[in-house]
């Protein structure tokens, strides 16, 4: 079943056309990755799906319904959550308060509490640091907090923007293990990465973006084997 379907999407910042007609989809239960160089339009795609940007052409269907005119808060409520690039932790809110903000669209305090416990099970370090200010965490802990915060809305689809950025290799491994675990619990994942090798190693399918267009798509293993991709992104 197609959870998310992006159809011939065009997005511009003023006169600059960042995305020029891309189409891709995420099926329920999948990990799909968008890879490509800086400025290829990966983050723009995610920001458009989340409703922060409006496309000037094309459509985005979530569970069969168009969401291009839907407000960001309704999109979160419908089950799409984004962990933004650079983490964007609320630096002077505590770890606990950051997580509470992730559950902003939800009402039932008991359900929120059980989500919080689940996040703490995935990220025990967040529990230890729950009353610390977000800005005082290390880079890896901030990434965990950003992901935990993204999970607090109980998303069906999690959008991850460069989760490995600026992290030490050992932390990158840990983060990707957690992404796999989140997926195994039933959350579909759309992953944007510059670390193409890492992204392809856990993804089911991949799309390669170049200057706002999709130049290659397929299952992750075949993309990984593609000689041009090996040369351009995997060194």
């Amino acid at each position, binding site marked *: 079943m197609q959870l998310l379907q992006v159809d011939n999407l065009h997005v511009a910042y003023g006169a600059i056309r960042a995305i020029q007609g891309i189409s891709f989809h995420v099926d329920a239960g999948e990990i799909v990755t968008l890879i490509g160089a800086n400025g290829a339009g990966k983050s723009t795609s995610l920001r458009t799906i989340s409703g922060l940007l409006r496309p000037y052409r094309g459509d985005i269907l979530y569970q069969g319904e168009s969401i291009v005119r839907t407000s960001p808060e309704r999109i*979160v409520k419908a089950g799409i959550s984004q962990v*933004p690039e650079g983490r*964007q932790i609320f630096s*002077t*809110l505590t770890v606990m308060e950051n997580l509470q*903000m992730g559950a*902003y669209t939800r009402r039932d305090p008991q359900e929120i509490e059980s989500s919080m416990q689940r996040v703490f099970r995935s990220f025990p370090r967040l529990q230890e640091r729950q009353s610390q200010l977000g800005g005082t965490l290390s880079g890896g802990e901030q990434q965990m907090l950003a992901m935990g915060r993204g999970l607090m*809305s109980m998303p069906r689809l999690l959008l991850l923007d460069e989760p490995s950025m600026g992290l030490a290799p050992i932390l990158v491994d840990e983060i990707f293990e957690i992404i796999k675990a989140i997926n195994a619990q039933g959350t579909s994942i759309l992953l944007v990465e510059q670390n193409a090798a890492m992204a392809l190693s856990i993804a089911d399918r991949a799309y390669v973006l170049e200057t706002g267009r999709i130049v290659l798509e397929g299952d992750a293993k075949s993309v990984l084997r593609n000689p041009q991709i090996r040369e351009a992104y995997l060194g």
Partner: protein
Amino acid sequence: MNRILAKTLLRPVVWVIYAALAAGLLYGIGYLVQLNGPTYFAQAILDGLRLGFVYALIALGYTMVYGIVRLINFAHGDVFMVGAFASYYAVARYGWSFVPAILFAMVICLLLNIVIERVAYKPLREAPRIASLITAIGVSFFLESFTALRFAFSADYITYKRPFEVTVWKFWGLSITNATVIIVGVTLALVLGLQYVIRRTKIGKAMRATSLDKSAARLMGINVDGVITFTFALGAALAGAAGTLYAIAFPQIWTFMGIMPGLKAFTAAVLGGIGSVPGAFVGSLLMGTVDVLVVSFLPLGSRLRDLFAFLVLIVVFLVKPTGIFGEPQVEKV
């Protein structure tokens, strides 16, 4: 390396400067105390703090709105004026007592500010910041002049009818009125209530999150426009209470009465660190005290008070633009 060395060598110099400032302050206080006696001085401090409490209620609105939309809402002083008039009508025309009158003023100001935000500022949210600033000044002029029309509040000075009789108590030669007690009590209650809202409630946390990072707040599902409107409403309710309390302390009102208290509360907010709630409170108490000390001790003090207030503003901008509680870098894109 050189910079670090210079810093280490300069540190004792900075201490000497601070010590000199502290000594100067102590000497100044001693001088003022012996000038007219300790009771006169203590009375001036007391009156200054009382004025500072009223400034605090205004300054909180400036600082909260700035924290969320990075706008100095110059119309805020005029919302305060409308608060004074709203409670005047409630008391003088309808014979309401204090509590309903101040609540009425708060509600009127809250509604007024929501309209101002929706009509004047929201359409300019994505425009350069200077556009909203100029608009704020325009809204300020509009409120002052429109309310001065004959069919509105009129341009006359109006004697404010207090909702209660003033009684004066004497303690060791100091006079304290029931009005003072009410001003301090109401302000403290409102400030503590505000602190509770900002620290503990869901909407308060959303306010803090929004002021830190609007796009991240949107990704959490926070309705950022709603949070901004809520912030304007909250600030205006405090300004409405301030208008009522100010009129009780200085019972003469007119439509241009908001300009000076507004500017001084703004100065106080900058002094405390714009964007900081505790800063606005502490800055206001300092501001009120300076204000009354100038009036009480300087010849022609009542004419010089405004000069001194803005001298404070200039000095803060020169010496420490981030204010007492301000963070080093507040700007964030």
